[in-house]
């Protein structure tokens, strides 16, 4: 019975995606002078060269980190949207160590990534702490903290790390030892992809195979039940936010050390928000996160290629992503069909 329901869930997600893609086609057809070409570069562009395949893999890395982060925070039914700020702040923390410290190769990025993770953990932990201590809405406070992270991060970069000779507002160059190695020639795919894969497994083990993960899931399903069965809900909620924040911060650190020579961001990168979509598509299951991350990275790179080669701006991807979230998260979407299936299974 469970198996066919799971299949149905998958089918439901596929149908949601198909509807969103159909909408994308309608948008392209109405707005482009060369719809055929635009559509082709949108759907097949990411596969047409090694460089474009590389782009998809590069983009998957931050999306996996943010997707895992949001999955773990949402698993405890906490709407902490701080992954965005945690990612940004983790990147800044790692930049400081990458510029200022001198360490042997492998150890340097290792320390910098852990440091980025620790900063991310503190960052996402604060809204969690405010929630368990006083019941302040983690949704509102984490949204505010994202703006605070942004301005405070820019302050740190501009006043302590800024390279005045560089012309633009960028940091000093990172030490060579801090950078993550590139894996595939002609692309920017870096070692971070292995770290991302490692984190997928660690997150899955944490959520499904440890007592803490179990407690987090119980709280997410029914907090009153968790309370009555003797789980320390406050501490467990805080733990889930710390772990989620740690992964987001790691993601930011991996991103800057893998792709950049200096810290150059002048706005929030937005991966934390995409991470929310990844988590929803993956149903908060770490093992499905890479699949969702691949899909969203593919969409986004396809749109980039299309906007470069044709006259359609790539921002329309946000519209498609929004529609996918709404349909996938909609309990009533195809509920009648699901109900029929349940009845049929029960009769059989």
């Amino acid at each position: 019975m469970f198996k066919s329901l799971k299949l149905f869930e998958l089918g439901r997600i596929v149908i949601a995606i198909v509807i969103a893609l159909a909408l994308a086609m309608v948008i392209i057809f109405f707005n482009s002078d060369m719809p055929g070409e635009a559509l082709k570069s949108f759907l097949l562009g990411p596969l047409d060269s090694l460089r474009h395949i590389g782009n998809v893999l590069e983009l998957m890395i931050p999306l996996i980190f943010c997707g895992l982060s949001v999955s773990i925070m949402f698993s405890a039914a906490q709407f902490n949207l701080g992954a965005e700020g945690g990612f940004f702040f983790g990147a800044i923390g790692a930049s400081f160590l990458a510029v200022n410290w001198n360490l042997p190769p492998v150890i340097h990025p290792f320390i910098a990534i852990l440091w980025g993770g620790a900063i991310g953990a503190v960052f996402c932990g604060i809204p969690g702490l405010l929630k368990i201590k006083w019941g302040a809405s983690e949704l509102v406070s984490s949204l505010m903290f994202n703006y605070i992270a942004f301005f405070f991060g820019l302050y740190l970069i501009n006043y302590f790390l800024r390279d005045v000779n560089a012309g633009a507002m960028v940091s000093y160059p990172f030490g060579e030892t801090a950078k993550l190695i590139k894996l595939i020639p002609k692309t920017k795919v870096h070692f971070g992809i292995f770290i991302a894969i490692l984190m997928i497994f660690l997150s899955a083990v944490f959520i499904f195979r440890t007592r803490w993960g179990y407690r987090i899931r119980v709280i997410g399903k029914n907090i009153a039940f968790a309370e009555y069965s003797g789980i320390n809900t406050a501490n467990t909620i805080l733990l889930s936010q710390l772990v989620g924040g740690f992964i987001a911060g790691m993601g930011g650190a991996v991103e800057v050390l893998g792709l950049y020579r200096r810290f150059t961001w002048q706005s929030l990168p937005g991966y934390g928000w995409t991470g929310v979509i990844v988590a929803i598509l993956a149903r908060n299951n770490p093992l499905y996160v890479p699949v969702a991350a691949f899909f969203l990275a593919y969409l986004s790179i396809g749109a980039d290629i299309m906007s470069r080669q044709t006259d359609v701006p790539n921002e329309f991807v946000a519209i498609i992503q929004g529609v996918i979230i709404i349909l996938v998260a909609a309990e009533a979407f195809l509920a009648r069909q699901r109900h029929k299936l349940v009845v049929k299974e029960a009769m059989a």
Partner: protein
Amino acid sequence: MNQILSTILNAEFGYSVLRVTTPILFATLGALISDKAGVINIALEGIMLISALTGVIFSAISGSAWFGLLMAVIFGGFVALALGYFSLNLKTDIILAGVALNMIASGGTIFVLYLVAGDKGISASLASQVLPKINIPLLKSIPVLGPIFSGHNVLTYMAFLMVFVVWFFLYKTPIGLRIRAVGENENAADSVGISVVKIRYTALVLSGMMAGFGGAYMSMGYVSWFSRDMTAGRGFIALAAEAMGGATPVGGMLTSLLFGFFDALSNSLQILKIPYEFVSMLPYVVVVIGLVIYTIRKTEQAKRIQERAAMNVSEEIAALSAGSSGEKS
């Protein structure tokens, strides 16, 4: 410190507080109406953004700022209607639906802006209109008060007028009563024949229209153009302001003014030698602090009420047992 004081203690600063409070106040009232019906409208941020662009486009097409405002408000209502459909009919979690709508608004406005203005950043190439400023005859010639309260955009006056309108609507009309009933206890409301879904739709649409006013003000009053992500979290700040204001119109107005004060302060402190990043952070930090203080006070209040109730109960039990033991003897 003196410099800060002299910036605050002048009429110009007072004027700018009201100016920056306006969009937050509209959004706060929007948050209030939907909250009273028991739904969280986190899409306020995106609705404001969409309405800001709508106002610019339609005022440029028609040459009339008022038509732009009308369309902005209507679009605001429509987006909220969509949010209602997703959450009430399709049963999407309303927070996720709100996140999705905000995402669509952020990307979609840039997409549309590029199509109509040929630019992804700012609507400078559109000849959009600005809503008029109003000089209040007698008031404007009074020193200090005149420069603070006169000469504002028409929507600024409307925002403060709306505080009264929303109060009247929620507390003095039958539909307001129904909205509050649904928010207090939807099952009880349902049992006396109120259609919960219909009431929530109404509240959401009204809340979207409020955000529509706020968005129109952003692009046709606060400044005279649309730029990408120009709402900069004001919709989110409004959610905090509404909560801190104790979910009342006047309370929401006071907290909006508080945030407006710090927003204006951050604008005028940029001249001083404080790093601008710190100054820009200020309003958001104040929101978090305010939210925490508010929730601490609320939990303590709840505790006190509970303790008092517990005490009453134990007294009653004591009285009862005293009574029954009296009967025995």
